[in-house]
């Protein structure tokens, strides 16, 4: 899923390759084969597995499954939006401000990626669970799930926006200032358009990650139906001997992810055509 968004930004810029070596066919051939084995085939298997009227009818009619899918979609969307805001703010502080310990903060950003997600879940449970040292107990609530997802998706937007902010010429902002623009106008009219594609790409990745997250939410979610998200439903269905229904839920998640990535890719393309 992630490849769609990343590919969307990387492949956009140039047209045909400049030169065509003799081995031109081999590289693309191997790449496509590799992708087919790792991505195409499993997805195809999932589709064929879920090609069953009963499985889809289950997804559609089972109230619990439907509500879980809705919750998953909306919480992933919330994660994407929140990350877009906090990620840009974090990237801004790390690029534009100087403060003691900046390098440490910068390396902390990657911690959620480095940590095994179940450990992240454990950490969050220790801090925000029953017996929390700071007196905040969000275990077994949807807020807890939101915390866990925010934690594991933290780096996406920040790391996507940071290099773009770094590459922005300060002269451009000075030019806008000389033309009478206030700081907020400069941000809205000059900076935001420049970082929007990276922000959307990061948010899309965060969305996709939130949609499929399992390890970090399983502990703080408290294993109750109210806090379940898509991946947990799939695990339960497989455990209870309903692989076809599980495949259908999985495919539903994939479709959601693809739809959001597609929309964001289109928006990104529109915005960054001339950057």
């Amino acid at each position: 899923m992630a490849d769609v968004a990343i590919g969307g930004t990387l492949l956009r810029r140039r047209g045909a390759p400049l030169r065509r070596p003799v081995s031109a066919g081999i590289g693309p051939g191997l790449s496509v084969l590799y992708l087919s084995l790792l991505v195409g085939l499993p997805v195809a298997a999932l589709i064929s597995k879920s090609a069953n009227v009963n499985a889809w009818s289950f997804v559609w009619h089972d109230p619990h499954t439907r509500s879980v899918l809705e919750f998953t979609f909306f919480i992933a969307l919330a994660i994407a939006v929140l990350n877009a805001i906090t990620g840009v703010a974090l990237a801004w502080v790390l690029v534009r401000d100087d403060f003691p310990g900046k390098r440490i903060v910068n390396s902390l950003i990657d911690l959620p990626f480095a940590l095994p997600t179940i450990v992240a879940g454990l950490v969050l449970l220790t801090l925000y669970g029953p017996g929390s040292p700071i007196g905040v107990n969000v275990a077994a609530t949807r807020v807890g799930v939101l915390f866990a997802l925010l934690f594991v998706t933290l780096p996406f937007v920040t790391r996507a926006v940071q290099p773009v902010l770094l590459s922005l010429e300060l002269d451009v902002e000075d030019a806008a200032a000389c033309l009478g623009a206030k700081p907020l106008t400069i941000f809205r009219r000059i900076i935001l358009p420049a970082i929007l594609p990276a922000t959307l790409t990061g948010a899309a990745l965060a969305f996709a990650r939130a949609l499929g997250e399992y390890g970090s939410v399983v502990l703080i979610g408290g294993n109750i139906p109210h806090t379940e998200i898509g991946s947990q439903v799939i695990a339960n269905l497989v455990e209870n001997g309903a692989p076809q229904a599980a495949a259908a839920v999985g495919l539903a998640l994939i479709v959601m992810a693809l739809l959001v990535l597609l929309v964001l890719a289109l928006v990104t393309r529109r915005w960054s055509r001339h950057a």
Partner: protein
Amino acid sequence: MSIQVRNLSKSFGDFHALRNVSVDMESGQLTAVLGPSGGGKSTLLRIIAGLEEADRGTVLIDGSDVTNVAARNRGIGFVFQHYAAFTHMTVWDNVAFGLKVAKAPKGKIKARVGELLDLVHLSGLAPRYPAELSGGQRQRMALARALAVEPALLLLDEPFGALDVKVRQELREWLRRLHDEVNTTTIFVTHDQEEAMEISDQIIVINEGRVEQSGTPDTLYDRPVNDFVMGFLGPVTTLGGNLVRPHDIHVSRTAGSAGHPARIERLVSLGFETRLVADPGPGADPVTVQLTRNHIHELALEVGDQVYLSVSAHPARLLTALEG
């Protein structure tokens, strides 16, 4: 709009970009701030624009103190070396930016942008994006953008520094005409003495954060106050311990009253001009002389010939070369 800069100092860490600089720029004039890279000239321009804050000193525009006025309220047009184009906007939107920010009426924006694009010869490229323009076109767009808000003061920071020689030559002549046409006060920063000499009314030479000299191009060329200004404004060579311009040296085959003997080491033909390098003997640096090709032919000079060098009757300026 006249500018007075009083006792301006600015440091970046240990680096002193400006040390107690005071200069005046007269209304309606085209002033060049000339000096070597890292000499502080861009810092001076940025402080005048309000893009940089001075550690000490004041900036007066038309007599009023603007030291603490934000850049956006100074009504100054600024052109950057690397264009600073708004890459996600069309040429038209780039030029219209300042007017839109000022919430000018739509009809006025349209008329003004059209007028400016005509002025910079970019009318046909209005719907293009900056990435689709050449360097020279981008800089003309940047100029139109800066002029859109009708600034009384136009500041250009090495405006042609990123362009190739031919385009630079064209644009500098064009800038001079533009300055006369739109009738603003213009200050531009350059490290190219030829550029400064060619188009400016006044030159301010800045080196190591200090003003070395200011005046008309002729004054600076003919009456430099020190070796640095003399060396920076044009070619120099040493003859008999004096710093002179290579075209002020007279070459003769016979020893005159004040002739320095030297042997011709090299003759370099540069079209109209021929450069003669002569060796005045041990302990002295080679002397460079600029002559016309005809002059060389008249004297039938050859490498190895003995000649006598003297400073011509009315040298532009004689300076005693610093020892060492």
